């Protein structure tokens, strides 16, 4: 079962450059042909684009997940949320990302036994230190493999 002692733990802060070509690639992979994504030299990011922060994570970020001690064979992605208080960041921005474990809790599943929910929050701050985006992810460790 995922480690409840990990609540409150934080990963390392790391920088993420928001790039025009990456926005265009991501927009096309999610079947958008909106001109704001494809033609604007400083396009806004698509709503789920910050998942690409994985490309910028330093190797030390994996330590947080080791602390959580989740069995990846039983791991499901339950929920995902992105909040942009003043709208989505644009290409050209450099964001600083930092992830923390918000909560770990259990629920009884209908089929898979006890499920453990792990909620992580990543704040993305801009060059001025303002939080311009927040990602909240809910991972579920099922009681037995999902297959």
């Amino acid at each position: 079962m995922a480690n409840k002692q990990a609540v409150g733990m934080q990963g390392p802060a790391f920088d993420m450059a928001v790039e025009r070509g990456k926005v265009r690639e991501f927009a096309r992979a999610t079947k958008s042909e909106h001109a704001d994504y494809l033609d604007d030299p400083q396009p806004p990011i698509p709503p789920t684009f910050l998942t690409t922060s994985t490309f910028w994570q330093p190797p030390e970020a994996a330590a947080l997940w080791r602390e959580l001690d989740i069995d990846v064979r039983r791991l499901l992605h339950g929920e995902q949320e992105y909040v942009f208080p003043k709208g989505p960041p644009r290409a050209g921005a450099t964001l600083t990302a930092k992830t923390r474990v918000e909560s770990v809790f259990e629920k009884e599943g209908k089929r898979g036994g006890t499920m453990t929910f792990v909620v992580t929050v990543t704040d993305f701050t801009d060059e001025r230190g303002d939080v311009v985006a927040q990602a909240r992810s809910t991972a579920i460790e099922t009681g037995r493999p999902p297959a």
Partner: protein
Amino acid sequence: MNAGDSLEARDFGPLTRTDFVRYQGASGDFNPIHHDEGFAQSAGFPTVFSVGMLQAGLLATYCTDQFGPANVRRFHVQFREQVWPDDVLTCTGTVAQVYEADGERRVDLDLVVTRQTGGVAVRGQATFVLT
């Protein structure tokens, strides 16, 4: 636009393995269960299945194409059924409320991604600014 209004539905697909691979390359999630047939079968699945975040991204496209990419303020999804090769996904949405906040006129949307079987792949809620 008023609470209870329905958005026009939009279909995506049939989805291909190439769609999955293209999304994995773009997103950086290289879990082999979404592209490696042998790996997926060894994990007990009949074949590879889609990345949840691809369905989420398609639902996001459904919204941004209608309301404008710069207007998103919140996007939230819950993953339900898995999505398989050749699935056709239908995005639908209804207006939950229209209101003023932070000096902006905003709309909250309730969203669903449905498979061709009628099964729900994703439920979502989003907030956009109306311009």
